[in-house]
């Protein structure tokens, strides 16, 4: 079983120069967790996901772990303020994207894809690319689970 067999190929992507507001609209409207950022030639240049957006609006002293947990703090309106600033700040997708999303190649085994997901990523998906970094699809942790669930025992042995 290869990465290309279980990946989702109909992927909603965005361009590097697309305004952040449009990207957020897409994330929310389509219930997405990740939007790969792809240039005009179809090459993967980064990714934007829900967590990386939250990362940008949480105060820096929490992100860096200086203040690991704040169970004592009420909602002080900071997140909304920072979120609005992010949306209205005139920033583009390339300004806020993750520049090194976890990538796998189309021919990698299920074991290899799962390993990449578990060891490298803070997120629940990997992006599948060919040797030119052209985006081919996305594999989420759910895709892997479903593939295992649906596969016949002989299929799994072949893996």
């Amino acid at each position, binding site marked *: 079983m290869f990465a290309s067999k279980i990946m989702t190929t109909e992927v909603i992507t965005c361009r590097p120069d697309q305004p952040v507001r449009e990207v957020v609209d897409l994330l929310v409207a389509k219930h997405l967790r990740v939007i790969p950022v792809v240039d005009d030639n179809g090459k993967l240049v980064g990714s934007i996901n829900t967590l990386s957006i939250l990362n940008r609006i949480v*105060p*820096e*002293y*929490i992100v*860096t772990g*200086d*203040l690991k*947990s*704040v*169970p*004592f*703090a*009420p909602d*002080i*309106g*900071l997140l909304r303020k920072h979120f609005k600033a992010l949306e209205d700040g005139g920033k583009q997708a390339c300004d806020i994207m993750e520049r090194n999303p976890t990538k796998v190649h189309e021919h990698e085994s299920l074991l290899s894809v799962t390993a990449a997901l578990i060891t490298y990523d803070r997120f629940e998906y990997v992006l599948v690319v060919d040797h030119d970094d052209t985006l081919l699809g996305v594999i989420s942790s759910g895709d892997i689970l479903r593939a295992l669930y649906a596969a016949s025992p002989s299929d799994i042995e072949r893996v």
Partner: protein
Amino acid sequence: MAVPAHSATAIFGLPSVWLAVTILLAVYAVIMVEKFNRAVLSLLGACIMVLSGVLTQEQAIHGIDFNTIGLLTGMMVIVAISQKTGMFQYVAIRSAKAVKGEPWGVLTMLSVVTAIFSAFLDNVTTVLLIAPVTLLITDALNIKPYPFLFSEILASNMGGTATLIGDPPNIMIGSQAGLSFYDFLVNLAPIIPVIFVVTMGCIWLIFGRQLHATDEARELIMEFNEHEALKDIPLLKKSLLVLGLVLIGFTCAHGLGLEPATIAMFGAALLLLLQSWEHDLESKNHDFEGVMAEVEWTTILFFVGLFIIVTGAEHTGVIKLLAAELLELTAGDFDNTVAAVLWTSALASALIDNIPFVATMIPMIEDMAPTFGGEEALRPLWWALALGACLGGNGSLIGASANLIVAGFSQRAGHPIAFLTFMKHAFLLMVLSIVISHLYIAIRYL
């Protein structure tokens, strides 16, 4: 018969005096450039002292003040464990609520808390605990954090001056001059509240009058729930027990003929034992390793290397020479020497790391004992060194590690602190604190 080290000609045919001075100055200079880890530099310098023949390995090891190392390490372990309980955040929030979120009140309370914590904990640890909560509170109040952080920097260095364990220079001075926790409490602690109040008065004139928060913002502060900050009540009880025992130990140690390092290391071992008492061996090991990872090995190994480097310089007789030079400058007059030590320490500590400075000054002052009539007579000089070196750290943003840590926080929160902006106010306030210290020493001891 062994050849005395100071008459030996070391490798490269250089006299050992010049070798030792070159190593010492080179290490200090590269530390100031701040491009390398300072522990690595000091260990490297220490090794060169031995490799080049200035010191034998045995002399080098003998030069390490294990009382300072033990006290530092022990306190770091105790703090690493007790900070996990959230008690410091609890106190900070509690104090902000006590003044109903009124900005100047919050600033004063957080400064007092910082000063008190700094007197008993490492300054760096204190600001690491207080600065993030401060940023959260100022975010809630929707006001600029700079006046708060400025005041906390000054408070941490002032508080640290008050006790034997408050600031590394004091630990070194206490250990090497044989001064007890109680000696520091009686001689240094009384003047610190005076300096603190005067400084806060100036900060009120500079920033305090302009601080203003809306009623809604102040309401938000009252919505903070400090009880939620206390994460681990059993651990809190154990930490408070050990902290209490250690403080009692420090106060009584001298009378019992015990060194502070013994007390701190005992407290550390006891808290390490208690922290995971109920757990199985695997998680006990895991907890132990977690605490070890939080101990600031950079600082500890920096001290180890530094002690060896200074011992090297001492062996060549160069420190004696400097002491004689200073005495000549002050014409052997005690009052002038005290003043010189106080002001030189203050100005030097404002610009360079006060730890290597104090490490060099200690043997120098010890060498003056014969001139001034023995060890006992030197005491005012020790207080001058402690006040100068600790308070001097307030003179600039690079004067103390705690200052740089706060500046780092502030920058990450989007409010960078400029070197000159800070110095504009801080240097004058530092000078003011030294003037007060000078008066205090003159009235009480001279």
